[in-house]
């Protein structure tokens, strides 16, 4: 199995990077597309699109079963993608990378498999109030079934976690803590390394929702010492339909399977079966092979840019956005106001204009795509006293000029609504 050795090149210009993304040259409503919704899903570079295309054109067959040439090629393509992802997050072994459909499925896998085996009535699970529904609802289901309790780390007015409350909750000896590394609403980056160390000291297992961080920050699962890390391919330049669960080997090995079926078994008799090794124990059925190949190409692309460059670029775009947005009258930004404390996600409201109206005006008159709604974080919205916000989010291809178009659109909305 050959792997392309990563060569650190000179950082490329954002203009040049944009040339790799075919969709960025299209127009909407007669205007150039200004895509500011990468936190929901990123766009895809040609390298990803073509890797999937090439796989289907030349190597597709089912994996792990054929003894013929192209089945072996497909198997190798799948496993090579796994190795790339493992290196990208600095996992010790490839087998610690389990392919799922997305972050949501990864978290559910842990909640069902690890949760059922380890969580009992009266046990405590600690979450935070800034979680995405996908890092909340699976634990609610587990708590309902097992009789476990859920407690939540609240936020400061600035949108940071109240770590003193976290420390106090840890004193109660929770079984599990689960938190996001970066909020998809406030952009807040949480000090997960310290939080994990504290959780371990209290005897808890720690799960990190890295849906927003894996695409945007250097991620080293060994340095974090995380027990489980979950993320989605589609937010990090890869295709939809592929996600990752990283887990510590001892934990994954001790866990019962999640879904049963083909590929996840070693041997099957009519009344019982034995399980396959990691990672396949958790990958029942035919996997998303082309999508894994696409994700492999995406992490190659990100590695070539360098995740430090990605973070640096987004920091400067975010700083620029925070500065420019604050020049718009009656605009309220939620979350920390310094770019060190946040990723490239900015939620805001403008006067009393409903975010949906804002999003429609930005779309139709300016070709700007932003998110409007509760961002799958209703408890957080409730905490903010809102039903919805507008949200702009950035990625490797975002230009300062695009922030200018956004700001121009927001001023136009004020004019239309005459506020």
């Amino acid at each position, binding site marked *: 199995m050959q792997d392309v050795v990563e060569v650190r090149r000179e950082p490329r210009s954002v203009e040049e990077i944009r040339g790799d993304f075919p969709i960025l040259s299209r127009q909407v*409503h007669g205007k150039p597309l200004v895509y500011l919704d990468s936190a929901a899903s990123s766009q895809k570079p040609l390298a990803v699109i073509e890797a999937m295309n090439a796989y289907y054109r030349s190597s597709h067959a089912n994996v792990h079963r054929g003894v013929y040439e192209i089945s072996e090629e497909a198997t190798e393509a799948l496993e090579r993608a796994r190795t790339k992802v493992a290196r990208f997050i600095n996992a010790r072994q490839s087998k610690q990378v389990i392919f799922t459909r997305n972050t949501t499925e990864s978290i559910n896998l842990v909640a069902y498999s690890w949760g059922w085996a380890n969580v009992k009535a009266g046990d405590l699970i600690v979450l935070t109030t800034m979680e995405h529904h996908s890092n909340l609802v699976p634990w609610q289901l587990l708590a309902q079934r097992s009789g476990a309790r859920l407690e939540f780390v609240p936020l400061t007015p600035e949108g940071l976690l109240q770590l003193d409350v976290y420390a106090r909750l840890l004193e109660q000896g929770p079984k599990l803590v689960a938190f996001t590394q970066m909020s998809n609403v406030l952009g807040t980056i949480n000090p997960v390394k310290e939080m994990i160390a504290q959780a371990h000291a209290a005897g808890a297992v720690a799960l990190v929702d890295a849906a927003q961080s894996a695409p945007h920050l250097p991620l080293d699962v060994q340095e974090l010492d995380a027990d489980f890390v979950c993320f989605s391919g589609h937010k990090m330049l890869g295709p939809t339909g592929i996600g990752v669960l990283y887990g510590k080997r001892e934990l994954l090995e001790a866990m019962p399977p999640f879904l049963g079926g083909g590929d996840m078994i070693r041997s099957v008799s009519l009344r019982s079966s034995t399980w396959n090794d990691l990672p396949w124990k958790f990958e029942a059925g035919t996997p998303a092979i082309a999508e894994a190949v696409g994700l492999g190409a995406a992490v190659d692309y990100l590695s070539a840019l360098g995740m430090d460059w990605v973070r640096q670029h987004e920091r400067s775009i975010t700083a620029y956005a925070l500065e420019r947005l604050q020049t718009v009258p009656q605009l309220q930004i939620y979350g920390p106001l310094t770019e060190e404390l946040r990723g490239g996600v900015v939620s805001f409201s403008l006067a009393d*204009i*409903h*975010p*949906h*109206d804002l999003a*429609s*005006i930005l*779309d*139709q*008159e300016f070709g700007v795509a932003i998110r*409007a*709604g*509760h961002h799958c974080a209703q408890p957080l919205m409730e905490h903010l006293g809102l*039903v*919805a916000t507008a949200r702009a989010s950035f990625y490797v291809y975002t230009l300062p000029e695009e922030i200018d178009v956004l700001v121009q659109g927001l001023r136009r909305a004020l004019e*239309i*609504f*005459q506020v």
Partner: protein
Amino acid sequence: MSMDYREYILDHYRDPRNYGRLENPTVHVEDSNPLCGDQVSMDLLVEGDHVTAVRFQGRGCAISQAATSMLTEMVQGKSVQEVVRLGKDDILEALGIPISPARMKCAFLGLRVLHKSLVLAGLERPEHADEHDDEL
């Protein structure tokens, strides 16, 4: 498809018609759009075979609130027979701008509340009301 916020829509949004509550309504119904949090509540007073008074309250985007305001103008003083027949086309015609698919739910929130009210008041069969309630 391009939606533009025409002056008359913004006018209904800022200055909604038939806004408020009725003292003794025949029926009161509230509903909301879980995705964006738009809310509408409606009071109807039915006397004989006419809707003699209607009031609504709500909060949300300009499209949902303006569409509901316009709808109340179509309801006020009309016969029950006419009101029962009000449908999506009437809303779209009143708005007079193309509504993008993502915003249809906003546009039809008031209509859904109206038909729920009519069912609750025993003036419309639930199966008929369902036709206005499908998720696009």
